[in-house]
């Protein structure tokens, strides 16, 4: 009758986690070329404009994470960088994906000056990739290419703009069975 009452149990279980570079993660992020195809050597980065020291997109060889660099914007201008990187769902389920932009540091920054669009969308008529209301649903095995649009009107050259992009993916069925 009294069994089952224990005060403490310690049981070790094995969990194998293999943290992969962004290019091989369940939610994969890959630099792409001008045609929107993933590049062969992502650590070397995608194309580098003459105005920049760093490529627009690369996989940081130390962290394995995607870094984006758009560091020579014109003042008072709208600049579009098409084909920056690709988001792929290499998991097994359909996920809703949305983007969160932020600046963390001194002052508020200007993260709203930067917008991300799905490559096949038209910034003139389509909404940028934003919060949950402006996300996209990505089936397993599918991917999309991301363009960047920056509008520097009203922003001084020394002002901070953005330094963090968070890509959020959530199973479309999450919450349905709760």
């Amino acid at each position, binding site marked *: 009758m009294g069994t089952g009452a224990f005060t403490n149990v310690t049981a070790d*279980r094995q969990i194998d986690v293999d943290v992969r570079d962004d290019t091989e993660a369940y939610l994969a992020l890959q630099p792409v070329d001008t045609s929107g195809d993933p590049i062969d050597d992502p650590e070397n980065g995608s194309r580098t404009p003459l105005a920049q020291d760093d490529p627009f997109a690369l996989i940081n060889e130390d962290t394995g994470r995607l870094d984006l660099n758009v560091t020579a914007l*014109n003042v008072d201008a709208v600049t579009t960088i098409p084909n920056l990187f690709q988001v792929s769902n290499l998991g*097994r389920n359909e996920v809703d994906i949305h983007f969160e932009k932020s600046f963390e540091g001194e002052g508020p920054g200007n993260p709203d000056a930067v917008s991300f669009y799905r490559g096949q969308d038209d910034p003139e008529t389509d909404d940028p990739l934003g919060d949950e209301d402006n996300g996209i649903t990505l089936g397993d095995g599918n991917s999309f290419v991301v363009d960047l649009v920056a509008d520097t009107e009203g922003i001084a050259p020394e002002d901070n703009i953005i*330094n963090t992009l968070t890509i959020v993916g959530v199973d479309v069925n999450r919450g349905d069975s709760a």
Partner: protein
Amino acid sequence: MKRRTLLATLGVTAAGTAIGTGAFTSVEATRTVNVNIADEDQALLAMEPIDDTITADEERGEIRLSFDEDPGDGGNGRGPGSESTYLFDRLFRVTNQGTQDVFFESDFEKTHGDQEIGNVGFYVAETDDSLLDGESAVAKIEPGQAAEIGTLIGTQGVDPELDNSAEFDFDATITASDEVPGDGVTVLDNEGDEVNDGVSGQ
């Protein structure tokens, strides 16, 4: 002994699950984004004065053209006359510091209040018969190439008496796009020579 068996079973189950994983419920991946503004002469579309009596850098590095001042070198004109067409060759330099060919064009606000301000256009090198308005002509600038841009000002129909100051401030919107222009648009290279097919001529 029984307990060990149980543990072993659990262990196998865990391993079995691990093999099939890939169904994630949620992921938040935070990535670094460096976005900065460069000085105008070092930006993706770099622009800098050639003739610095007319073209100046503004505070924020933006170029500004001024046809309302003493041109210097002993000249003491104060601006273009009425009913005239003025050409100003090679006022500023535009360099493509991006990664692909771009086609340069510009639009102007051609009114000041309710007044027409006449004709204004940019042209490449000395090709003033092809204004780079995107409809009749554009200038193709390859990565690393620079084009020297001049300005045409036509004051036909502008009556300086209408406005005592006779001064017009307006914006030029410069567009450099990789979109290949449609048929009928003359494509000039960065020296002002006609490009046959719009795509890199070889």
